[in-house]
């Protein structure tokens, strides 16, 4: 078992995070919120220098792991360009990127982005997207707009669908990383009743609950990536399993991190405020947590999830 990304992929993620920080860090998200039409231009050149747009995650395990590390680093800074969707575009489709779409009112964070973006259903059908005009400022919509879908007759391969589900979870993981790190730093520094908040056991226990959730997502994210890399037949199940855990974890982590930050966590001077708002599209789209559970439940009914026992082996 090898359950760590390669050193090269980890190093690449670190480079990306540093480059984004040097280019403005959290200020990029703020600038995009002020003017959504700048979303692409704020991010594209920074990552271009690092070869991010040449990555083809499904061509090799190395590229897949580099793409995952890239998405995680993008999440740390709540980058205002959908890096994961761009890396998930199906090979046979000429498009800027692909969002997984589902439900009666499909939506995606496309406000301010030009070019051709496509929607991909969990069954692999590819649709052209026409984004409806934004009805709210980006500050409240997190760039999400409703979509009109036009079937193309094209199909995404199962691994491509799985990747389009899994990579956004890597970005969400990056957000959880940063949220927990910031909260840890805050409770160590912030003093009340003459001592740091971190001395209070109720604070310690909440922080550990957040950390357990974050660690769980990290492990499932790596497993899902391996499942895609290895071309496993149940890669989409594995990606949905990751997504289920990630969206549930995000609810716990952001609730705890906000609570431990107190009022300062709501303020725009605190990156948590930006991360928390920016995480919403990743957590709600293409399916909310309840719909994700139902989707996974119906997909794996009768065969369960791959692991130690098949249903037949489980009965002894």
């Amino acid at each position, binding site marked *: *078992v*090898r*359950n*760590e*990304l390669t050193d090269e992929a980890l190093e690449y993620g670190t480079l990306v995070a540093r480059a984004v920080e040097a280019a403005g860090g959290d200020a990029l998200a703020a600038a995009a919120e002020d003017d959504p039409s700048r979303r692409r231009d704020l991010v594209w050149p920074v990552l271009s220098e690092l070869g991010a747009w040449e990555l083809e995650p499904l061509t090799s*395990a190395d590229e897949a*792991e580099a793409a995952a590390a890239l998405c995680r680093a993008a999440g740390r800074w709540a980058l205002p360009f959908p890096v994961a969707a761009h890396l998930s575009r199906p090979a046979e489709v000429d498009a800027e990127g692909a969002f997984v779409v589902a439900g009666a009112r499909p939506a995606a964070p496309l406000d301010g982005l030009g070019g051709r973006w496509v929607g991909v259903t969990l069954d692999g059908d590819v649709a052209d997207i026409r984004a409806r005009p934004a009805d709210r400022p980006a500050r409240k919509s997190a760039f999400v707009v409703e979509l009109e879908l036009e079937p193309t007759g094209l199909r995404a391969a199962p691994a491509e669908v799985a990747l389009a589900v899994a990579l956004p979870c890597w970005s969400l993981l990056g957000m959880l990383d940063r949220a927990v790190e910031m909260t*840890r730093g805050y*409770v*160590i520094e912030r003093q009340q009743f003459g001592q740091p908040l*971190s001395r209070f*056991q109720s604070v*310690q*226990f909440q*922080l*550990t*609950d957040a*950390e*357990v959730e974050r*660690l*769980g997502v990290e*492990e*499932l994210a*790596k*497993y899902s*990536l*391996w499942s895609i*890399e*290895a071309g496993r037949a149940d890669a989409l199940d594995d990606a949905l*399993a990751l997504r*289920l*855990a990630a969206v*549930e974890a995000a609810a716990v982590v952001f609730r705890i991190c906000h609570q431990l930050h107190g009022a300062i966590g709501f303020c725009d001077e605190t990156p948590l405020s930006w991360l928390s708002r920016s995480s919403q599209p990743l957590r709600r789209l293409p399916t909310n947590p*309840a719909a994700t*559970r*139902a989707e*996974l*439940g*119906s997909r*794996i*009914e*009768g065969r*369960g*999830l791959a*692991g*130690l*026992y*098949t*249903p*037949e*082996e*489980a*009965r*002894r």
Partner: protein
Amino acid sequence: LDYEMGHWVASLRSELRELVAEHVPVDYLGAFTADPADLEIAQAFCRLLAERGLLCMAWPEEFGGRGASGWEQTAVREEMWALHEPRGAQYMGVNWVGPTIMRHGTAEQRRRHLPPIASGEVIWCQGFSEPDSGSDLASLSTGARRDGDEWVISGQKIWTSYATMAQWCFLLARTSREERKQQGLTVFLVPMADPAIEVRPIDCMMGPHHLNEVFFDEVRVDDGAVLGTVGDGWSTVQEVLAFERVGIARYARCERLLQWAPVALGDQWADLPPELAAGWARMLVHCRRSRLLAYRVVATQDSGQVRPGDAAAYRIAVTRLDQESAEVLMDIVGCASLGSDEQRRFARAVEDHHRYSVAATVSSGSIEMQRILLSRTLLAAS
């Protein structure tokens, strides 16, 4: 990334499953029942494992093992726990009493204790907790005083699993009062057959043998019973706990029962409330999550590192999984009419799992202690 454990681990799993299929009845729910035959099944199974070199495979070759890798040990932990631990209480001797004696024991202690453990002939119990010393173990007061060439042990232990069937006790006692409560503690290897030891079973929801009180009334032992250095027992016990860092592979039984559920229910599965079916899927994801968190610890240990926070995180996740999966499984059983032999076996296994799960967040270090450990490493990290 690669989550395949390889051919050797796969064949080890097959071998273990075949042995269980052949030697353990399908309705077996563990050694600790009111029926003494269940204990005998476990003892016979241990002897069988020992004969095939599978009982102590993690031990170094010089002590009769074959230095199995962390992944092989993981496979054994998973297979045994998933199938209701047909080794009975042996895991205690095999997993940590033996290794601790290898490390700290005298030549005589090794000669005396290791072969019976390796052959699956002996059961050990652990004399740690006391009525006033649970999570705060170092505050214990069972005392051992010097009298000539002997030590005289007096005091009370509690929650001692398997004390009614054990031949030996790995006992932590206070040999002196020092500035710090962690100082002045000593480990003794005490024969349970001593008439000055009284064991009183405590009736509990997990069933017989799980909880006992053990009274030591002037038990006399010589220096040969002291493990390691007098007064240095706390560091020995910390090592013991490190051997058990990963602990029980609870996720394996949870996963097996969850995977069994749709087969056991058959056509009735379609009648489950959608929310319950979705909850079942969610629990399977949580099984995988816990398994991968365990593998995170194993991989780190395999590379010679120690990250105590990871082990604590795993144990927090897996003990919660145990309880949450038990709730979901009980609800699934409650929704169906289970009339066939297999369905009744499934229902009994779920009921057993539920009763055990209640103790998951308390036994072997409560979930609060795990949180304290994790928060320590989290807040100390640079």
